[in-house]
């Protein structure tokens, strides 16, 4: 009789322990995993950045390049003829300035990262600033198709968490 009661108790304790362990694991996973959202706001930001006209002219007599055009020119290792500068260097400095100016209007952004890379290769341009302590991350991604490959442009924003 006593033995049976003990068995029941052990069984109950086992169930409670199992449920608790499950809850703990779930809680840890929920708290630790960053929330990566594809955000309309970041998507618009990246869209507008890419449409921006720069001061770079690739060949004399042609039009001023947009940032989107410069990604292709940078991949093809071309130069800004009027500025006597490599497109990648010019793109890097222009993007740093543009992103810095944009972030001045964003009170909630704690950190950001901009990456430009040919598909599954090491980034050609990587700009990052700030320190991300929050777990709210918004991402926008675009691809530009060139003859041989696909260029990927990715903007990640880390937003402050208000409790």
């Amino acid at each position: 009789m006593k033995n049976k009661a003990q068995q029941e108790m052990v069984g109950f304790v086992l169930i409670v322990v199992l449920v608790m362990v499950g809850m703990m694991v779930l809680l840890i996973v929920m708290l630790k995993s960053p929330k990566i959202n594809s955000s309309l706001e970041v998507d618009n930001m990246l869209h507008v950045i890419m449409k921006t006209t720069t001061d770079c002219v690739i060949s004399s007599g042609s039009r001023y390049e947009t940032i989107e055009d410069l990604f292709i020119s940078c991949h093809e290792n071309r130069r800004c003829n009027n500025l006597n500068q490599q497109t990648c260097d010019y793109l890097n400095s222009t993007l740093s300035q543009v992103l810095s100016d944009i972030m001045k209007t964003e009170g909630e952004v704690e950190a950001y990262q901009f990456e430009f890379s040919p598909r599954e290769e090491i980034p050609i341009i990587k700009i990052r600033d700030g320190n991300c302590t929050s777990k709210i991350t918004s991402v926008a991604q675009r691809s530009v198709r060139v003859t041989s490959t696909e260029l990927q442009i990715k903007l990640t924003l880390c937003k402050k968490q208000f409790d």
Partner: protein
Amino acid sequence: MVKAQMKIQQMAFMILAVFFFFVLVGLFFLSLVVQDLRGSAERLRAEQAISSLRVIADMTELNFDSSDTLTIDEDKLKIMSTNLSQKYSMFLPVSYIRVYKIHPSFEKEIKCPAPNCNYYELFSSNQKNTLSYSTYVSICTRVNEDGYVQNKCEIGKIYAGVIKNEK
């Protein structure tokens, strides 16, 4: 007889304990889900506001290139920032619309038209208790440089004020 009653009582208490335990577990998860729902609702509200701003930016009265979205014609902005836009007050369910040029950055706000101005006010109903929503737009214009006519686009941000709901 008493022993059997005791056993039934013991079992009843056990069932109650297990029931309350699972109720507590359920409440805990429910609170987590509700917390996430609030965040999602807030995010959806912001995305809806941004979509509305996109509709405003893509209106024929402001749009630069009908084949592209979020591009505003600076010449149209100049015209609309005169009293003309007041006529649109009944069509626009917002308290104000402003378009800022944000690159290069500026220290002091200067309303257009003025030298080195950095923002256009298209419409304002002078409401005080408003909630501001914004999204990015390209501010484009046709320029003639070195004999070539081309599009020049800058980075801007469109802000709209929505009247706060008093609770």
